[in-house]
C-alpha cells in the first residue's frame, strides 16, 4: 500500500510538468499581444511597452519563459499579475470561494443523486421511478446556463427567495442556488448511474443467495446491493470534484462569484500566461489527488481490490 501510494505521488510530477508546459504553450500561441492590449486602442508608447515586456519576461523566447516560470514556481514565487498583484494572493482569494461552491454542489449531487437513484432502482417501473427518470433526463439535457438563468430569475428576481447573485463574501444561502445549478447535471447522471447499478445488482445470484439465507430485505439492500452499486458512483463523484472546480466558470459568471472560473476566464482573455498556468496547475493537482483518493476508496468498498 505504502509503495503504491509513493508510486502514484511520483507519477504526479511528470503529469504536472507536462500539463504546465502544454498550457504555457497554448497561452503563448494565443494570437494578439497582451501588452499592446493594455493600451487599448491608444497609441502604444513603445518605450513603456518594452519595459513592461521585460518585467513579465514576455520579450524572451517561449521555452526560456517557461523555464523561468518553473524556476520561480519551485521557490513558490509565482510573480505578479498585470494588475500588479501577487499571483499567490489572487489565487488565495479565488480558491476558497470555489472550493466552498464545489463542496456544496458535491454534497448536493452526492446525497440527492444517490437517494433518488436508490428510490428509482428499488421501485423500478413504478410511477416514482418514471417521475425520477423524466426529471433526471430533463436536467441532463438542459445546459447549465439555462438552468442558471431560469432559477436566478425565478428565485432571485421574481420571488425574492434567494439572492440573485452571490455577492462579495458569499455565505451558505448566497451559494445555495449556484451550488444546485452547478451540481444539477452531475446529480442527474448519478441518479441514472445508481438506478442502473441497483436494478442490475438486485437480480444477481449473490443477492438471491443472501435472501435464501434468510437475511432481512433491509440488510440485503444495505450490505450487498448498495455496497456493490456504489463503486462506479464513487468513481464518478471523485472525477467530478475536479470537474466542479474547473467547470464552475459558467455558474460563476451567471451568479457573479469571484472564484477560480471567473479569474481563469479573465486571465485567458488578458493573455496572462503565469496566472493561467498557476491556476491550471492547481486544478490538475486536485484532479490527480482526487483520483488517487477514489482508487483508495475502491479498496474499502470492494474487499477483492488490494494495492501493492
Amino acid at each position, binding site marked *: 500500500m505504502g509503495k503504491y501510494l509513493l508510486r502514484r505521488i511520483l507519477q504526479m510530477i511528470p503529469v504536472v510538468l507536462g500539463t504546465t508546459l502544454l498550457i504555457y504553450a497554448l497561452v503563448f500561441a494565443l494570437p494578439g499581444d497582451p501588452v499592446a492590449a493594455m493600451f487599448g486602442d491608444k497609441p502604444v508608447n513603445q518605450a*513603456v511597452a518594452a519595459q513592461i515586456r521585460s518585467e513579465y519576461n514576455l520579450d524572451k523566447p517561449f521555452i526560456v519563459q517557461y523555464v523561468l516560470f518553473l524556476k520561480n514556481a519551485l521557490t513558490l514565487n509565482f510573480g505578479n499579475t498585470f494588475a500588479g498583484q501577487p499571483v499567490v494572493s*489572487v489565487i488565495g482569494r479565488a480558491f476558497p470561494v470555489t472550493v466552498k461552491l464545489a463542496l456544496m454542489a458535491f454534497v448536493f449531487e452526492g446525497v440527492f443523486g444517490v437517494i433518488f437513484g436508490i428510490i428509482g432502482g428499488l421501485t423500478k417501473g413504478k410511477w416514482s421511478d418514471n417521475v425520477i427518470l423524466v426529471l433526471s433526463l430533463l436536467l441532463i439535457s438542459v445546459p447549465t446556463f439555462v438552468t442558471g438563468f431560469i432559477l436566478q430569475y425565478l428565485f432571485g428576481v421574481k420571488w425574492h427567495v434567494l439572492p440573485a447573485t452571490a455577492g462579495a463574501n458569499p455565505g451558505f444561502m448566497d451559494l445555495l442556488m449556484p451550488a444546485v445549478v452547478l451540481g444539477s447535471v452531475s446529480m442527474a447522471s448519478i441518479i441514472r448511474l445508481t438506478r442502473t447499478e441497483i436494478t442490475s445488482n438486485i437480480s444477481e445470484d449473490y443477492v438471491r443467495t443472501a435472501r435464501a439465507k434468510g437475511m432481512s430485505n433491509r440488510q440485503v439492500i444495505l450490505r450487498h446491493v448498495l455496497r456493490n452499486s456504489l463503486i462506479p458512483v464513487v468513481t464518478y463523484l471523485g472525477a467530478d470534484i475536479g470537474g466542479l472546480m474547473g467547470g464552475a466558470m459558467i455558474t460563476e*459568471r451567471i451568479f*457573479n462569484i469571484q472564484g477560480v472560473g471567473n479569474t481563469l476566464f479573465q486571465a485567458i482573455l488578458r493573455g496572462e500566461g503565469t496566472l493561467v498556468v498557476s491556476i491550471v496547475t492547481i486544478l490538475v493537482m486536485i484532479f490527480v489527488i482526487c483520483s488517487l483518493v477514489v482508487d483508495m476508496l475502491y479498496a474499502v468498498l470492494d474487499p477483492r481490490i488490494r494495492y501493492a
Partner: protein
Amino acid sequence: MKKQSVLTIAAAGVCSMSLLLSACGGSGDSAGSADAKGGSDTMVSVFNPEPANPLIPSMTNEVGGGNPIDILFSKLVRFDSKGKPRNEIAKEIKANADNTQYTVTIKDGWKFSDGTPVTSQSFTKAWSWASNVNNKQLGSGFFSNIKGYGDLQKEGVAGDAQLAGLKVVDDKTFTVDLSEPSSTFPIQVGYTAFAPLPESFYKDTKAFGQKPVTVGPYKFKSWEHNKALTLVKDTNYKGGVVVKNGGVEFRAYTDPTAAYRDVQSGHLDVLDTVPTSARKTFQSDSSVQAINEPGSVIQMFTIPTYMKHFGEDQEGKLRRRAISMAIDRDLIIKKVLSGTGVEVHDFTSPAIPGYAKNLPGSDVLKYNPKKAKELWAEADKISPWTQADTFKMAYNADGSHKETYDAVANSIKNTLNINAAGNPLPTFNEFRSNVQGRKFTDSAFRSGWQPDYPSPESYLKSNFDSSAADGNGSNDGDYKNPEFDQLMVKAASAKSLDEANKIYQQSEEILFKDLPAVPLYYMNSNGVAGKDVKGFSFTWKNTPDYASLSK
C-alpha cells in the same frame, strides 16, 4: 479613450475588454433631485469591473479604475454635465499669444486627504513622474505635448527627472511650455492622468496604488479585490461638485447580466450599461428605472487607405461615398440596436460642445440608394469591381457586433448589388493586433471612439490627423490630407474654444468628402437603476453622475 470599448463591455460582458475604456473628465454638476434631508449619508452601490491596474491616475486607462479615480482626484478643471470645463483646483489657466505656453495659478486652501497642501509641485512632479519611461505608465502619452517629454523616454533617464517644459514659479503658480500650440490644453488637463499627487506618493507608489491619498469629492475607504472598492464622501472637499450621498461602493462584476439581475431584485443601485439580453426590454422593465440618451461614443468603420479600390484617389472617394450612402442606418438603429443608438450626422457626437447637426456635406451620411448606385457605377468606369471582389468589414466577435455588421453588409449588398460581408475575428486582442499591424489590406474594420476630453479635437485629431497615422496614434487607416492637417493646426492656435470649434466643423467638411471612416451611429448612454434611487443621470462621458446619486 480607447475606441470600441463601450460596446464590448456592455454587450458581450467580456470584461477583460473593459481594459479598453478609459475614463476621464470630472463629475458634473448635476441637478439631481435628491431630497434635502434623506439620503445625504446613504451609500449607493454601483456596477464596476474590477480595476485592471493600481489606483494611480496615470496608470489607469479603463473604466474599472477610471470611474473611482475620477471622483477621488480633482484636477485643474472639471466638466459639468454638458461637458463644459469649469475651474476646479485652478484659479486661472492663461495662454500666451500663440497657445504654446500656459500659466497656471491654483486656488488656496486645497489639501490632500493626508492633510498636506496642494501646491504647484503636486502637479509638475506628478506629470513628470507619469512621463518617465521607467515608471511604465500606460497614460504617459497624454503628456507628449509638454516640452521635454522626449528626453524622459530615453533609456537610463534619472528617476526624478522633470519635464523641461514645466516651471514652478511659486507655490501656487507654474508654467507649461508645449511643443506644439494647443487651444484645448485647458480642457485636456481635466483628464484623470493630470491629477495632482501628494509627496507621500513617491515614497511608496505600490502602497499608494492599493490605498491612495486623494484630493476629491470622495476619499478612499477600502478595496477588497474582486469584491468591492468603497469610497466615502470627503467632508474637506473644496470644489464645485455637489455630493448627495455618503459614499459609493463600486462592486466588482464580470458580467453585466448578473448586475442587471441584482438591480431588478434590489441588491444593486446602479448599472451603467445594458446587457445585450436586456437591450429590447430594459426600457419597459417595471422593476428598474432606465436611461437611454445620446452619449459621446461614435461607432464607425474605417476603410483604410491601403485597401484595394479605396485609395485616396478619385475612385476611392467615389466608392467610399457610395458605401456610406448605401447603408440604411435608421433601419439598423431601429431593428438591430432596438433604439440604443442615434442617427449620425458628423464625426464627433451630440454630447460634446462644438457639435453641429447640419454641416455642409453631411448628407453623405444619409441613406440614398439611387445616388449610391450612380457613384459606384462611376467608380467602376475608373477600375471595375468584379464579382470576385467582396467588400469586407472586420470586427471582434467577442463584442456584440455581429448583428450590426451583418445588417450593414446586407444593406450594402442589396443597394449596390455587390458582395459584402462581415469579417469576424475571435477576440478584441487579436482584432487590434491586426489593425495595429496594418494587416487589413482587403477589409474595412470596425472603429469607434470615446473622447478623452469633451472637445471635437479628441475625435478628429486623434483619428484623422497625419501625425496620428503610421502607428503614431489612432489614425489606423493612415488617412493623410494636408488641408485637414492645416485646419487642425489652425484650431490649435485659435484664440478661444468657440473659435476652435468653428474650425473643427470646417475640417469635418473635408472628412465628408474623403470619408476616411464611415460613421454608423452615435451610441447611447444607457443603464438602469433601482426604483428607490434618486438623481440617476449620465455625464458627457457616458458614466453615471456618481455624486448626484442618493436613496
